[in-house]
Structures are given as C-alpha cells and as structure tokens.
C-alpha cells in the first residue's frame, strides 16, 4: 500500500513524448559541441552548419533508449551498493554548488571556502536521511581552475558515502574522472563500482552546449554515471504551461541520452532536472514553488514510462533564513519528490534559489525527509486481525492499556518515525527549561553536536597520498603552491 503521486494521465504522457519527438526535429536541438555533432552526423542526422541545430530522428533516440541501463547503483567507500537508481527507490542528498553559507550566528550569507564545505560534509555524513553526499558548495579559497575537482577531493577525504558532483568545464571533468580512477585503484574499478555521479546541464531552450555535451561524452566513455539536470524555466526559458515545459524537458533529456549513448552505449545516465517556474514579479526561479514540484513530479512520470532512473531538485527553499518559509517549502517539496518515487532528490540544506547552504537547515530538512520516507512506507498490516487481537483479557478500559502490551514495544518503532530533538514535542515546561528555542535554535545545537562527534574516515594511506599528490599537482598547475590546510 505504498502511496504514489501521479499528475499525468497515460494519454497525456503519450502526447508529451510524441510532441517531444516533434521538437527534436523542429525546431531541433542546438548542439554546440563538435564531437557530438560529428557523432550525430555519422548517424545521418541533418545539422545546420551555421546554427548547429540538429534534427534528431525518433529512430536514433529509440536506439539510445534501448541501450541505456534501467538501473544501476552508486557505491560507498567500502564498495557496498548504497544508492539505487531505478524503479521507485527514493534517496536524498544535500543540494550542490552553493556559493554562500548561512552563518548561524550573524545570519550573514558568508562566501564559502574550504571550511564551509568540510562542515557540510561532516554534518551530512552523520545524518542517515542523506544516502549520498554532494559537492555542496564552491570553495572560493582555491583557484577557479580547480574549484570543481577540489570539491570532489574534499568529499572523498571526508566521507564514505556516494557523491553527487559535477564538473565546470570539459577539461576538469576528465581530471575528476581521473581522480576517481586514481582513488578506486583503476579506471575499471571506478567504472565497476561507481562512487560518484556527475550532474550535466543542457541549456534551455533545447541547447546542448559545448560543455554539457562534452561532459556527457567523456562520462559515457569512462562509464561514470551522468545525471541530466535539465532546467527549463516555465514562462521564460520554456513554455508557460506545465505541459509545454515538461515536453521541452523531455526533448532535452532525449537528446542528451542520444548523445551519451552514441559515445558509449550502455553507460549509465539519469533523467533528471531542476525545472522551475519563472517568477513573474521578481524574475526569479523559485525552487520552493509548488509548481516547481509539480513540474518535477510530471517529468519523473514521463521518465518512468520509459523506464529511466530519475533525479530532481526539491527540498530547497528560496527564503534567506532557516525560517517558517524554509520549513514549509522544503518539507512540502520533499514530500512531493518522495511520493513521486524519484530516485535522487537533491536540494536539502539550500536557501536562496540554491545559492546558499546551511548546515542547520540540513539537520531540519532531515526530519522532513524522514516524514516523507515514513509516508511512502505506507500504512502496513502487521497483525492478522486489525484490532480485535489487541483487546485481550488484560484490557481494563484505561488509557494506558496498550502501552503495556508486548506488541506495542515490538512495533512502535516501525509504526512511528521517532524524530530527533530538532522536532519539539516537549511540554511547555520542558521546552522553556531547554531554553525556549525555535527549530533553528535547536538545529544549531544539533550541528554543534554533530561537528563534535564527527571522525574522519580511516582511508588507506596510499590512496590518500595518491589523491593528495594528484590534487596538489592540479593546484600547482593552477598557480598555487599549497592547498588549504585541512582540519581533522
């Protein structure tokens, strides 16, 4: 009895796919990467030499859809499967690529550096609701040329969980692939049990940039999973209607999968995105809007029709503080994502249109995730009779009767999610005695506890040394002698 949210009828999904195939031919897809164009041309695709717009036929797309894996895993440091991409599995990870972090004491959005990313890694590592880490913020204390690879380097050093990451250029995606191979021992080992997945973005509307398509090709060849993050903005960079936007999203994903599978058939790729509406008052891209969540639920339904693994960006807020708006937008959208059966839901911890991260929000969002996961756990039948069996001869018609039943002790942990101290269910007295804190105040305390209890993973010393010298080499090529000193 797992509850599921669906917004589209089968008939509408069929029409979305049919019109997406039409879009692939007219107006076509702008492919700005030469190698991708060469591959497409070899398959007989007509490409305008001036505009680089390709008319991709349905037959080629369908061939790609046949070779693409329906499911795969990401693995933890020990090589255990930890994240399942496929079916209706649901996982959450913190949002990626923030540029600021909420200072819990001053409430300023501080520009992020090494220490900020480490703090987020430490907190997310110890929260079971996060099945994967992300390269959550950019470290502005290292040169631009290594800002993407350096995030992955830190995640590998400070975490044992799988990592959702991404590269900023075609040069650095190869460096990051090499880094993963070096860490795993060989390119084959990195491919066989992938530790990380790379977000790759097309540009709306209907553009696969030189960088995006290049990333797809390199990842496909390396056999490292890619995650398409198509970002249509309904009303600005995509049609104003939800169905129009989902159709554009479909076309962008289909084109991406085609390029990816042409580069290496059978490499893993995910149907994902960070679709949003375009706010008509502020010109913003609200991640916490309900329509944003509805777009994501809809495109996931399209993906599931094709049997594709899924990803989305939900569980974030546009608020600048960890406040009531943050709670309601993050909680509601995480719930929609989980009910939609989306395999990887990125965005937790994030404020301000995905620009700002917060460790305190990560802690609070974990409770929203736990609620969403409890929800999709559904209502279960644990006992042969539903109720009558509970009323044995020890019933005294008193309120506490059921507290004394063995079965209560056996089942209450399964029936109820037991929230952490961030969720207040105290009496007013106990709450006052604990300092009359709001959720943010309680989250600040929890973050302090987590930072104090964190221990660096014990990694193989050769492995660490290889990783460090590779990273140092990249840094030196980028013009700095030393990497920032790392704390324990």
């Amino acid at each position, binding site marked *: 009895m797992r509850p599921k949210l669906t917004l589209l009828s089968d008939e509408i999904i069929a029409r979305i796919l049919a019109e997406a195939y039409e879009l692939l031919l007219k107006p076509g897809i702008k492919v700005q990467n030469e190698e991708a164009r060469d591959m497409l041309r070899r398959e007989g695709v007509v490409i305008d030499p001036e505009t680089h717009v390709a008319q991709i036929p349905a037959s080629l797309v369908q061939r790609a859809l046949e070779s693409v894996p329906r499911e795969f895993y990401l693995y933890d440091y020990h090589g255990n499967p930890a994240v399942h991409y496929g079916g209706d599995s649901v996982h959450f990870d913190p949002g990626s690529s923030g540029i600021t972090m909420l200072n819990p004491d001053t409430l300023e959005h501080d520009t992020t550096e090494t220490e900020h990313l480490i703090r987020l890694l430490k907190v997310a590592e110890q929260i079971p609701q996060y099945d994967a880490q992300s390269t959550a913020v950019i470290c502005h204390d290292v040169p631009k040329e290594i800002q993407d690879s350096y995030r992955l380097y830190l995640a590998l050093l400070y975490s044992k969980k799988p990592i959702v990451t991404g590269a900023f250029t075609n040069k650095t995606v190869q460096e990051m692939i090499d880094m993963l191979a070096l860490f795993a021992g060989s390119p084959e080992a990195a491919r066989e049990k992938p530790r990380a997945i790379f977000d790759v973005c097309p540009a709306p509307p209907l553009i696969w940039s030189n960088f995006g398509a290049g990333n797809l090709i390199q990842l496909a060849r390396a056999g490292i999973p890619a995650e398409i993050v198509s970002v249509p903005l309904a009303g600005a960079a995509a049609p104003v209607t939800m169905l129009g936007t989902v159709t554009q999203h479909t076309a962008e994903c289909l084109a991406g999968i085609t390029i990816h599978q042409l580069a290496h058939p059978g490499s893993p790729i995910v149907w994902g995105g960070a679709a949003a509406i375009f706010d008509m008052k502020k010109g913003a891209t609200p991640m916490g809007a309900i329509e944003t969540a509805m777009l994501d639920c809809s495109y996931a339904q399209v993906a599931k029709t094709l049997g594709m693994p899924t990803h989305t960006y939900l569980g974030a807020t546009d608020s600048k503080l960890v406040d009531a708006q943050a709670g309601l937008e993050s909680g509601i959208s995480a719930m929609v994502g989980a009910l939609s059966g989306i395999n990887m839901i990125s965005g937790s911890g994030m404020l301000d249109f995905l620009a700002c991260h917060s460790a305190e929000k990560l802690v609070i969002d974990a409770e929203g995730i736990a609620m969403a996961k409890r929800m999709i756990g559904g209502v279960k039948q644990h006992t042969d009779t539903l109720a009558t069996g509970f009323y044995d001869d020890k019933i005294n018609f008193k309120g*506490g009767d059921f507290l*004394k039943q063995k079965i209560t*002790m056996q089942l209450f942990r399964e029936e109820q999610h037991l929230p952490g101290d961030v969720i207040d269910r105290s009496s007013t*007295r106990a709450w006052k005695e604990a300092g009359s804190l709001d959720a943010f105040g309680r989250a600040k305390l929890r973050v302090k506890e987590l930072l104090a209890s964190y221990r660096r993973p014990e990694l193989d010393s050769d492995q660490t040394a290889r990783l460090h010298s590779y990273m140092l080499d990249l840094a030196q090529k980028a013009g700095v002698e030393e990497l920032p000193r790392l704390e324990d």
Partner: protein
Amino acid sequence: MSEEIEKLFKDMAQSIIDGDSDISVELAQKSIEMGIPPLDAITKGFVVGVNYIGDQFGAGEAFLPELVMAGEAMKAAVAVLEPELIKLGEAREIMGRVVLATVEGDIHEIGKTLVGTMLSASGFEVTDLGVDQSADKIIGKALEINANLIGLSALLTTTMVRQRELIEELDKENLRPRIQVMVGGAPITRDWATKIKADGTSEDAVGAVALAKQLVGKS
C-alpha cells in the same frame, strides 16, 4: 559470588531491560530454588535493569513502551519474590508509601499510571486510587495507609486548581511535612508547583522517581 549467580543477576537485569515479564518471573523463581536471598535478587539483579532503562529513557534512547514494559516485568518479578521475603521476615525495604490519584473532575491517567509503575518498580509502595478523586478521599487514603507522599495528577488547566485545594486542606490539618505532595500533568509548571506550595514536580515518570526519592530522603 559464583559465576552462576553473577550470570543470573545479569539475566535478571536483562529481562527487565527487555520488558519480558515471563522471563523475569522465571528468573525470580529460579533464584528462590537456588536459595539466593530474595533481597539480593531484587537489588543486585532486577533493579539494575530498571535503573538502566530509566537512564536510557532520560537520555532519549528508550521510549515509553520500553519503560512501561520494564516496570511491568519488575512488578511481576517482585510479586514472586515478595512472599519469600515475608517468609524470611526480611521484608524489602520500602522506599516510601505513595498515594496516587488524578484530581476530581479530571479523567486523564496515562501519565499518572506510568509514574505509579516506575515508583513501584523503584521500591515504593504505591496505592493508585485512579481518576476523578476528591481531596478528602485522597487524604483519607493517605492517612489510612500511613503514606508519606501524595502524587497528584491534573491534565486540564481547569482542574489543576484542585491540586492547590488539596494542599491547602493538608496544611489546614497540619499534615505536612508528614505527607508531602508531588504534582504533575501536562499544564503543570515549576512556577505553578511553587505557587501552590507543592513539595515538587517532575516532567516525566523517571524524574518523578528521582523526586520521590529525594522527598523521602533516599536519593
């Protein structure tokens, strides 16, 4: 202490932690057969388990069903050992005698019952009068059994005033500090307890045990 006895004590504590009355009763009987002094079985065996689960509850690691089941398993074990204690003429040292009740006009009792379970598991002799009890009846019972504590529960802001009335009556009769009063219930604050001159209040059943021990000078 022989290894066998040591293991028995450990199993006794574990049966309480597991909240398993069947096993705690079985172990209590076994200890009688082995000729272990019943007082030892209680204090070196079962009580260790009660204390452990109480600490776990205080630390947020254990939950109400575990606390209640531990209390029930303790009660069941003590029921087996008590006749032996009496036979030996070495009755278990009673921490204190408590009368528990929910005030007149109020029928809530889950919290009060929990307090009762934990108090008796911790060595108090508990008389639970139930819900909707008048001050006269509660005081009468306390005098009858020579109680040194009254535990008074109220869950409603409209009925909590009854706690004050009972205390005033006790004071009028000059019955304090012979009988001390602990108040509890969702709306009860420390300020309220102070204002009505109660002898103490606690947030939960584990705290109530600590408070009761303190009031009878056995903490």
